[in-house]
């Protein structure tokens, strides 16, 4: 599944039972609903292990952070998690500014995040 506009896209692939979302472009109040739809789509399929790869994401505002907060409780209650990986320093700085690494597992690489799900 791919949600796409000219400023943001999110694509989804399943790897080792983990639903991996690949973000690119700008995640702001305009594009956040696309990510929300993508996560909703995974949860509706009964899946709750979600990895978000930020490698190609250039920007995030609080609207983007809010999407992860909106789903984290639900997926953890179902025994899953939303793990975050491969952020550019500028994107990580926004997560870090508000202390999000206290609540979310932020990994440098996708591989190590998937391992945390499977181990």
């Amino acid at each position, binding site marked *: 599944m791919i949600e796409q506009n000219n*400023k943001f896209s999110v694509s989804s692939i399943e790897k080792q039972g983990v639903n991996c979302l690949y973000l690119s472009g700008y995640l702001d109040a305009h594009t956040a609903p696309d990510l929300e739809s993508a996560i909703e789509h995974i949860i509706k399929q009964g899946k709750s292990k979600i990895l978000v790869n930020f490698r190609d994401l250039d920007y995030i*505002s609080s609207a983007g952070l*809010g999407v992860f907060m*909106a789903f*984290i409780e639900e997926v953890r209650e179902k025994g899953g998690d939303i793990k975050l990986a491969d952020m550019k320093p500028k994107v990580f700085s926004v997560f870090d500014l508000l202390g999000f690494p206290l609540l979310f597992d932020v990994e440098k690489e996708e591989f190590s995040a998937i391992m945390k799900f499977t181990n």
Partner: protein
Amino acid sequence: MNFNNNTYQTEARFKCDSNELVNIREFVISQALYIGLNEDEAFKVSLAVDEACSNLVKHGKKRTSIENNCYIYLDVYSNQNQFIVEIHDKSESFNPNSVPSPDMQEYFKQFKHGGLGIHIMRSLIDDISYIPATNENAYNTLQLKKAIIK
């Protein structure tokens, strides 16, 4: 519309629409770099302005009558020490300084979401002031000041 004595730089008008946020950020970054902020500081100001304008789009648009076109006006100024962005709008007045900062430990514990935009603005900007619209001036003004580090 400015309420200071700083050197005038430039102004821009954007529709009160989330689709414009990317253009608003690009405008602020280009002006900040031109005035002398480094890339990191320019990014911080653009994020703060994005948060302020996102709130206007979310809350302001529905409060403004449909007949009345909804616009956000940005004025950019500088003096020797500061880069200043003023955001003007005609929606219902709302002073972000009236909102207390959240306790993030509690925020995470209760899995809250939303309401972080003003907190981000405060974390990134040196001084935030607000002048609500009056009978004489129909525009609210939010002023964001960022020190120019030389």
